[in-house]
């Protein structure tokens, strides 16, 4: 193979690789991007049920109930505009309590409730993802 041709082949391979990367990434993005919702966002128009998403807001006062099995909790997340009931099975984070910010990761159910497989509680703001902190501040001000 002549040097010129070799360069061409390598260049084409590189282009194909980059194209492949973008293709793989975009196709995976299409169905895997986890969106961030506040309860007000989903009121009336629930997101696709098969999608792993984040739900952020405040734990509604008086909504926190621990189940008899000792490892499940039910509570409601609110942003002042709407409220979504959430079920979670697991060890709750240290600062998880009523009237405090929370981000639940999981899926929506057909009845509009939410099943969480992971909870992030509001820690000191310095350790909070800014996007989440921003959503929570909005919820805080609405709740006050």
């Amino acid at each position, binding site marked *: *193979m002549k040097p010129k041709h070799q360069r061409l082949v390598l260049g084409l391979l590189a282009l194909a690789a980059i194209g492949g990367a973008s293709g793989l990434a975009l196709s995976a993005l299409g169905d895997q991007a986890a969106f961030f919702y506040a309860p007000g966002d989903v009121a009336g128009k629930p997101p696709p049920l098969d999608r792993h998403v984040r739900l952020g807001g405040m734990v509604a006062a008086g909504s926190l109930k621990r189940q008899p099995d000792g*490892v499940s909790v039910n509570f409601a997340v609110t942003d002042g505009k709407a409220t979504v009931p959430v079920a979670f099975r697991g060890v709750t984070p240290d600062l998880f309590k009523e009237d405090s910010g929370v981000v639940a990761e999981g899926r929506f159910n057909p009845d509009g409730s939410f099943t969480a497989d992971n909870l992030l509680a509001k820690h000191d703001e310095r350790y909070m993802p800014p*996007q989440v902190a921003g959503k929570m501040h909005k919820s805080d001000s609405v709740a006050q």
Partner: protein
Amino acid sequence: MIAEAGLAALWLAGTFALIQLMLAWGAVRANGTAQADELMTALRRVSLLQGLLALLSFGLLIALFVRSDMSVVLVATNSHSAKPLIYKIAGAWGNHEGSMLLWVAVLATAGAGVALFERRLASATLAATLGAQAFIAIGFYAFLVFASNPFIRLDPPAPDGQGLNPLLQDPGLAFHPPTLYIGYVGLSVAFSFAVGALIMRDVGPAFAKAMRPWVLTAWIFLTIGITAGSYWAYYELGWGGWWFWDPVENASLMPWLAATALLHSVTVLATRDGLRAWTLMLALVAFAMSMIGTFLVRSGILVSVHAFAVDPTRGSFILALLGIYIGGALALFGLRVGTVTQGSTFRLVSREGALVLNNLLLTVILGIVFIGTLYPLFAQAMGVQLSIGAPFFNKATAPVALALVAATAAGPLLRWRRDSMNALLGKLLVPVGAAGVAFALVFALSRGTHPVPVLAIAFAVGLGVASVLPLVRRNLRRTPMHVWGMVIAHLGVAVSLAGMAADSAFKTERLAAVHVGDNVTVGPFRVTLAEVRPAIGPNWSALEARLQVRRGEDGQVFEMMPQQRFFSAPPTNTNEAAIRTLFDGQLYTVLGEGAEDGRWQLRLWWKPWVTLIWLGGGLIALGGLLALIGRVRRERREDDA
């Protein structure tokens, strides 16, 4: 006075960086004249001085933290007098300003190292390299003194400090940032070499041989940093996971991927004089990735489980630096790449061909991680809030990663320049057979397991066998050290992959609420909650569960003590998991909260062979170290001869 001296040292270091840039300019212009030698001598001395002053400044910051000088804002906000000494020291870099000072101190020290030890490059190329190094440093000095001054006084002084984030109070994490930064900054040297070579149009084996030890060093430290970071997240966050595809983790993974590709292409350039332009490009990309990593972690613009020390205004300063350095380097590359002459050629089926394939696949993975990490940023700019998680990264990278494993297995079995497909297939017969047998065995023994992890285990076995083949029928004593390095590093990839696959295929989890005296079973273990009692540490108090664990029916009983810790400064609770390492895996226990009826939540995982993940990371780093020692020794012999 210490704080003022530290700031003065920082200003002086910045001034010397400016002088260094001007001397480098002069030395490049005077190339070939009698004056050039004098300028070179001055340039080397100034580089050394700049390094010493930056180190001094950082040393003085550590002194402030050790003395708990609460009249300094940074100390008051990030330290506490009651902290153990090691965390006072680590507090110096466990925050934005201190970590940026560490960054520039490592950068300047590396520049001084180049000035002192580099004898291989043509002197004008060395001058251009030191100039590029100074140019990078100037931006970071400006950033420190104008936007992130670590030495600002607090008036009146605080009675005591606010403390360090308890999650950072861990020996593993205390040394994590320095390790990563040495890696990042090692890549800045590779970047400067590439810029120097582009300016002087001096791209060839000598340049590659000069650059290689720096790339190797950076890569070793990045490997150790990523491995240690993964283990830290695993045991400290109490989630039982070892990789979250978190933006902060990706920030260290992206430079590692680029450095891994660079490491392989620089070898082609050093030994066969091929892939010239590509190697230059990778050197620029690798450092761009460390800059982007710094930007992501230090700007606070990304959603992250461990995004700390956030400040968007500084983000734009780092972004501007990023634009200047990377944009400038890419422009230089665009202008000069046409003058980089073609190196020697090779057939596609050859060692070089396999290394090109390795580079392409690594680049694809890098591209996917890059898109997944930065896409939410672009979306946010468009007004859409979204975050991208593990499912995306796993789905998109897994097929490419498996192809890369296959290329890693085949590459070392190929000859340089040209080889035949038939010979390669012959050599691959044994590893492919081993992989097939492994697949059949694991699949049969663990019915119902997802086939992808089982496939990954088979690939790991195949790669493991293929990695040691280059040693077969060789005199092991006379095998060069860098060959050993390659074999061990590739073996490490196989070991790590086996650990990841085994953990995802075979881990078992139990979540239960139990009274004291009750039993829970997980995997082959029976765990009894013996008692819950208070415990006390230097700056925390805790609730501690005493668990009695028995493996099988007749095994020895051992105890494990997971804790819930309460730190007073700042007031924070953390979960301290208890982990028992056995020869075939780890038992991981977390104490949850207590209910009013006297039950305690316990979360238990049995993770078979999970330790292989970090053992493999250690082997990869060890392989890099052997290669580094072997290369440096051999080149010294060549120089003497």
